[in-house]
């Protein structure tokens, strides 16, 4: 029932995935720079960031306890393990029926420890970030369950590994489903990975941040782990959106990979475009924004409840 894939290929792709994660955020910053007429930092800048942080000293606050020391590891591991569940071209490294739920709750575990780490250092700014993170997460979970969950119910397969295999572009209903799903997942990305409509990644005003302020007091290796986890999560959600198009199913493993990378890049460009064009939402509006995402998700399942194949 629980299948750890015997051949090493899926594990290698996952390792590649970990390495490529900062590249995606580098590309987004690069595209943003182009759009605003700047040259912008080189695409490899995030890698340099990580190496620099790994060598710097770590400063723990006097009031920080064991939580501040363990949280970065747990945040990183939950996102990493979530990546293992994803079918990147071949069957997923780890898969079992019902691992959709494990996927969602792993991310929730990571969030749980990140919030606790923020509250541990007894600073009001980090507390503010923690409360905002807790609040938006409440509305993010339903979006994930409505999109991926409804897909699971329609295709009657409950493992991430197999749930995307059924999607075929010729079936018009699936076309509607995929477009709505991608849009909903886009809302999810902006909320979870602190992208523009919800949170401005490169602001320096603590009062306005959400995710950056939670790791305000992290330094050295902890900060490196946090930032790599953040970029990994961004890549994770964009792959989910990309997999909705089922590139591997339709075009086979090799050509599918190219299409998959192309969709990732397209998503990156779209994110960068939005970040340059839009300003950040007022915090009060963000729940409404996310509820809109949920509403689309419900629309999804309504379509398919009435046209469901036996």
């Amino acid at each position, binding site marked *: *029932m629980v299948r*750890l894939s015997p051949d090493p290929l899926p594990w290698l792709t996952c390792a590649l995935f970990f390495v490529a994660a900062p590249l995606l955020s580098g590309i987004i910053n690069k595209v943003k720079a182009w759009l605003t007429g700047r040259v912008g930092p080189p695409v490899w800048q995030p890698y340099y960031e990580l190496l620099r942080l*790994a*060598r*710097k000293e*770590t*400063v*723990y*606050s*006097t*009031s920080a*306890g*064991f*939580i501040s020391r363990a949280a*970065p*590891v*747990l945040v990183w*591991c939950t996102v990493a*393990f979530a990546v293992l569940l994803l079918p990147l071209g071949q069957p997923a490294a780890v898969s*079992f029926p*019902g691992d959709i*739920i494990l996927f*969602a*709750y*792993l991310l*929730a*575990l990571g969030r*749980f420890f990140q*919030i*606790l780490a923020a*509250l*541990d*250092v*007894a*600073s*009001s*700014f*980090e*507390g*503010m970030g*923690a*409360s*905002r993170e*807790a*609040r938006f*997460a*409440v509305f*993010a*979970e*339903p979006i*994930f*369950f*409505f999109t991926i*969950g409804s897909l699971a*119910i329609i295709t*009657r397969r*409950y493992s991430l590994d197999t749930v995307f295999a059924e999607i075929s572009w010729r079936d018009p209903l699936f076309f509607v489903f995929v477009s709505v799903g991608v849009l909903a997942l886009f809302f999810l990305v902006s909320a979870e990975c602190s992208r523009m409509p919800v949170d401005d990644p490169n602001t320096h005003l603590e009062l306005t941040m959400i995710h950056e302020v939670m790791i*305000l007091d992290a330094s050295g*290796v902890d900060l490196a782990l946090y930032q790599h986890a953040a970029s990994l999560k961004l890549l994770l959600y964009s792959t989910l959106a990309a997999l909705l198009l089922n590139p591997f199913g339709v075009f086979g493993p090799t050509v599918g990979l190219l299409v998959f990378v192309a969709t990732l890049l397209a998503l990156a460009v779209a994110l960068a475009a939005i970040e340059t064009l839009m300003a950040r939402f007022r915090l009060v509006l963000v*729940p409404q924004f996310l509820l809109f995402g949920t509403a689309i998700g419900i629309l999804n399942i309504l379509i398919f409840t009435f046209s469901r194949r036996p």
Partner: protein
Amino acid sequence: MIALFAIGLALHGLNLALPALLRCSRRLTVVCNLVNAIALVCGLSFSLSALLAYQRTEYSFELPAAGQVVIGFDGLSLFFLFTFQLLSLAGSLYAVSYLRHYVERGLSVRGHLSFFTLLILSLQLVVVVQNALIFLVAWEIMALAAYFSIVFDRQKEEVRQGGFWYLVATHASMLFLVVSFLVLHESTGSWNFDDFAHHAGYDSKTLAIVLLTGFAGFGIKAGFMPFHVWLPNAHPAAPAHVSGLLSAINIKAGIYGIARLIMILPAQEASYGWGLLAVSLISAVLGVWYALAQHDIKRLLAYHSVENIGIIGLGLSIAWLGRCYALPELVVLGFAGALLHTLNHAIFKGLLFFGAGSVDLQAHGGNIEQMGGFARVIPLTAVGFLIGAISICGLPPFNGFVSEFIIYKSFFRGADLLHGYAPLVLLCAAVGLAFMGGLAVACFTKLYGIVFLGHNRAGVALRRQREPVSSSIVLLGLASFCAVVGIFPGTGLRLIRPVLGELAGTNQTSAQWASPIGQLQIVFLLFLALVVVIYAAKVWVQGRTVVRLGETWGCGYTAVTPRMQYTASGFAAELVQLGRPMLAFTVQWTPLQSILPLARAFHSRCNDRMENGWIFLNHGIGRLLGALRWIQSGNIRHYVLYVFAAVIFYLLCALVW
């Protein structure tokens, strides 16, 4: 084997009389609780071995008032017996250290201890008796023992008020159950649950009455939504070891009742299943939302019990639907999810309440706005509380996740097998469960963060206290149990296999559905291995660089005081505002009078609309009865008038009928 159980009950019986013999309170608390603990160990060994090597045994004796009284140990009873005994053992051990503080305050412990023992004894009897009348007797004894254990610290008015809420609720549940069992007795002629099960000829009217009154009666005790009102009032009133037992196992008696009803009664009407699903979903979502708005630890945990009871209700409703549509797989999955969550909830809720008790001893007052930084004061309790908090939110490595996982699985299998609107409703239920999971994470990060992390908001110096041995044993024991059931789900499933076997008819089919969940341990072990490896790598990398302590970054502001930390109400304000229609959020604050404002006060209170509804009903009855108080007017001429009026009225009736 039954001898062990008999010895346990005998020891409890002896323990009832002990407070009368032993004079000195200090020695009494230790001896009485230890005797309870030994009795429970015997009971536990019996129920565990009976569960593992399962075959249904029963003993019966004759009572003229109740016909044949059967003491039966079938799968369901044994499972609940095991859960109750496990938590009672934890409660008794915890009480050994916890009661010492009350003894120092000069409260007489003798009455309380005998009622506490009676509570443990009657809890075990309730799940074992298969005769409806004796079940009612044991039910009421359990309710009364719990009441008198709650009103232990009688000096305070809110303790008496909380106890009164509890007493009225249990009596109402008693009345409903009496009607339900009497109607069953009327149609079958006997008091035994087996005869209720084998009797075929229930017409729809009696079945409707039995189910509605039965669900209402057990629902009040379990704490489903409109009837949950006594829970948040009774728990803060009770001392920690009693409120731990109350929330962990006492309300589970209601769940046992509903499970028993589902197993006995012929399931024709699916609408009851959907009704239970709706009530459970509302209880779950609103329960956690109210919990988010509370500032008293025990009141917060009490509302959380309502949420978890909602989750268990979801599992039971799926089981009922499975029986209605004759899908044994759904029945097995529903029951597995519900029962495993009952066990898990009992463990981590007991853990959290005992943790709250030791925090209460430090902070002398439940309000979490005055707390902070207790992780450095009572570290062992902090670790236990953290593990409890993680598992109650249903996060992966711990036991909350396993039972919620099974309930999700039952939703999705239900969506596959059922037709029409069922998939849509079940998906919405799954999303509700996820939404509630998010709220639970917000609620418990707030609780743990505000209470255990950061500096103390009341400015108390945080010196490491010596935690009593028994309470740390209990806390860490329960925490380890959470971890074991979480990481190796097979153990939890092993305990409920007998029940599933009875439900699905044959033992092997139930294993075939439930066993895949048992193999999850590989995934969790892999995850833990990953965490250990990465942590080691981090420590190694940090070893090569300098690690030092410094001030928290205050964005340049140097004079940071503990009161500047984020407060609990601030943390949850936004989410509570969103829940405004359901949460009656009232704010009182002194407006700005002069340019140089002197005393300013802000007080926000979030009380429960349904509680207001019940209080309004109470006043309504009071006003109605007040309006009718003219009968006893004191004037003899009115009384003579009543005599003649009654005669004339009856004579007119005589002409009509």
